[in-house]
């Protein structure tokens, strides 16, 4: 027997899928929001295709941020790298404090219009939560466990790969989840510099004073964020249930 939240999520997912594949079905619902003769459903491209591109942008940026942030966290939690911890902290903090819009503005002259400035902004913005969580996860392992791993004769590399990273994984995942959710929302502004994301729908709506477009773009991003957030959280729980109980 599935619980109510699970059923709700399933309903949201099915609605989202239906809307992306057959937006025409929803036209009567959106019609009251637009002026006469204006299109109620986004007609300047496939919503499904835009959603995939949106997800791809977020995925690529978060993946890169994860690789860099986790590697950095591993480095600064080793004995030899400990002195670099404050420096790395400040570096990723700068990434976080720099507004993505500013990053876009600065990146466009260098990389031109398109997807690249958006990827850079999302990447920089996503570093901090993953880095901080990975550092926390790697430095708060139960001392008896790390002691036992050393005492068993594991090399430093074996301890990291077999014990420390798997045990820190739920906490690292929390950081990734935060980055993904921030990234999903932030990616929309990428469309101001011609990145293909769901921001296009929202911007088109704002330009032509079409409330239905704005709503469509916003709701799709929101539904994606909620679903992905919950899926990652479920994964964290499954991992944590085994390791922390």
């Amino acid at each position, binding site marked *: 027997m599935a619980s109510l939240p699970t059923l709700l999520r399933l309903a949201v997912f099915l609605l989202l899928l239906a809307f992306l594949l057959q937006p025409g079905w929803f036209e009567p619902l959106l019609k009251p929001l637009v002026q006469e003769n204006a299109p109620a459903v986004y007609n300047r491209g496939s919503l499904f295709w835009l959603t995939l591109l949106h997800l791809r942008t977020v995925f690529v940026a978060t993946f890169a941020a994860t690789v860099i942030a986790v590697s950095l966290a591993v480095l600064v939690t080793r004995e030899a790298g400990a002195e670099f911890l404050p420096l790395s902290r400040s570096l990723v903090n700068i990434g976080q404090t720099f507004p993505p819009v500013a990053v876009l503005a600065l990146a466009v002259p260098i990389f031109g219009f398109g997807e690249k400035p958006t990827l850079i902004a999302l990447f920089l913005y996503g570093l901090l939560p993953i880095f901080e969580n990975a550092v926390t996860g790697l430095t708060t392992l139960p001392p008896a466990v790390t002691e*036992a791993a050393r005492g068993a004769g*594991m090399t430093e590399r074996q301890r990291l790969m077999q014990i420390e990273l798997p*045990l820190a994984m739920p906490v690292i995942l929390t950081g990734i989840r935060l980055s993904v959710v921030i990234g999903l929302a932030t990616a929309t502004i990428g469309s101001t510099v011609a990145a293909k994301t769901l921001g296009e729908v929202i911007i088109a709506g704002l330009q032509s004073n079409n409330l239905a477009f704005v709503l469509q773009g916003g709701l799709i991003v929101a539904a994606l964020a909620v679903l992905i957030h919950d899926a990652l959280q479920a994964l964290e729980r499954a991992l944590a249930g085994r390791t922390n109980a």
Partner: protein
Amino acid sequence: MIEFDRVTKRYDETEVVSDVSLAVMPHTITVIVGTSGSGKTTLIRMVNRLVEPTSGMIRIDGEDNRLVPEFELRRRIGYAIQGHGLFPHRTVAQNIATVPTLLGWERGRIKAKVEELLTLFQLDPDFFGPRYPHELSGGQQQRVGVARALAAEPNLLLMDEPFGALDPIIRAKAQDDLLAIQKHFGTTIILVTHDMEEAFHLADRIAVMDKGEVVQHGTPAEMLVRPATPFVEELIGATERPFRLLAIETAGDAVEPGTAEGTPIPEALSQREALSELLWSGRSALPVAAANGAIVGKVSLDGLVKRAARPR
């Protein structure tokens, strides 16, 4: 044989272990006792090089323990700690298989070893093998911790307050298990504890540490009869001395010729337990039975009282 040769460990200005020389005989249990901060844990952690001595040398079977890489040395030495330190994301079987896997044993041999150890510790391999540590009770986790330490058949087992987190009843059982297992494998054990009861129960030899120095090293009986310093005397507990003395030897050692009325006492019972039986039953003597049930003589209150007195 493990030899500590003038081992010193200093952290900045503070000397945690000062000039310790100690020889641990093979196939025996040596218990290192002392108050917290006496350096006892640091001392055994230098054996498997979790801590490096500032000066001095530790030899294992005549060989300097710095001649092999750390991780290789540690795979040869069993290590069990307080709070077991089981890997929470690995099953009981995988936990026990840790060192054999690191050593690259083949699958069948590892599986057989895991089953042997679980059976030895009275844990059903089919039931417990696939469980995760958090599904086990404290006593079971502790047994798995010791089983993991023994998995690669080490000649030497280091134990750092392994029973510290257990309640008294399970602890007594764990200690008896350890004695049985030490007999079974002939492992040399160095165990650290602050519990004197535990030390007297397990030790072939006791080393008492105080402020980084070994102040006395000897058999439990020596320690009772001739405590080297007031600190040792205090650690043993003056009021406990006669009873600890009786606890070391068995009723069989105190048998006198003659017969007595009452339920026979098994020969293997400690004299302390025999005394307890006499006092509780209100008799002045009780018969002693050998393992096969034959009466070999009696123990008397007078006899035990004489044995409990300080030897001259």
